[in-house]
């Protein structure tokens, strides 16, 4: 089972990202998925967590995620070095930062940094990085192709916004592929 933890702030769309990714792989990727927010009160601006569980088999275990395959951080200010301890041995941290080079010399090579906000801003004109981060996760994990993310996006956006979000996914996916190859 692939276990993903998303970090964001209330309003940044971390839970929507966890749901979009789960929806894509469950409806169009032939896999099973559960997506859930950190249970409890919802407050705009407060640090929030969201989770996605993905598996080839039906997911019956609804207990908490302990060790993660991927920790996806939508807001760099939420990154904490201790997150490394929450990873499975082959796990990775995916971080949205305006300065990806900052993490190049990080002692742990399991950190992948992408300027998702930069890509989103240039396409959307708004610093909303959640769809971009689903593309980074898709690229890094190999769980999802952009095509199935496009299909899931159609449940969230229409017309111009849909087209722009598809472009964000295409661009972010390609950039992430290059980063992985490096």
């Amino acid at each position, binding site marked *: 089972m692939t276990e993903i933890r998303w970090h964001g*702030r209330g309003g940044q769309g971390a839970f929507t990202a966890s749901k979009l990714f789960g929806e894509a792989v469950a409806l169009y990727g032939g896999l099973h998925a559960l997506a859930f927010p950190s249970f409890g009160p919802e407050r705009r*601006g*407060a*640090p929030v967590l969201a989770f996605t569980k993905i598996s080839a088999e039906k997911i019956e275990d609804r207990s908490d995620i302990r060790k993660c395959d991927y920790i996806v951080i939508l*807001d760099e*200010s*939420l*990154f904490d070095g201790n997150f490394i301890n929450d990873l499975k041995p082959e796990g990775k941290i995916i971080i949205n930062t305006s300065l990806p080079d900052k993490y190049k010399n990080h002692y742990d090579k399991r950190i992948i940094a992408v300027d998702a906000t930069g890509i989103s801003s240039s396409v959307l004109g708004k610093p909303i990085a959640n769809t971009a981060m689903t593309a980074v996760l898709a690229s890094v994990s190999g769980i999802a192709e952009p095509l199935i993310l496009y299909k899931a996006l159609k449940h969230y956006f229409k017309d111009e916004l849909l087209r722009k979000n598809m472009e964000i996914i295409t661009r972010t996916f390609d950039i992430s592929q290059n980063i992985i190859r490096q």
Partner: protein
Amino acid sequence: MNRPPVRKYIKPKHISDYPVGPSFSAGYLTSDNSGWRTLRPVIDNDSCTGCLKCYLCCPEGVIYPKEGKIDIDYDFCKGCGICSKICRNKVIKMEKEKK
């Protein structure tokens, strides 16, 4: 500052350390809110006229008058930026929060 002191919650070790029922002595906060902030308001107190508009408008009540000037409680400021928006002399700047 005029707020209750923060006393961090520590999980009790023995059942007799729990209060009987959900109650405890009042007048304490158990955590701060500074983690909500991505931008931090910084006041140029030299240019501040002490009009106290920010004190009145702060939705979190974390701005206090101090010796004719202004003081911000950064432990509880959520970084909403209202103080900066309403400052008539533009002396409150929102700066990126450093870790």
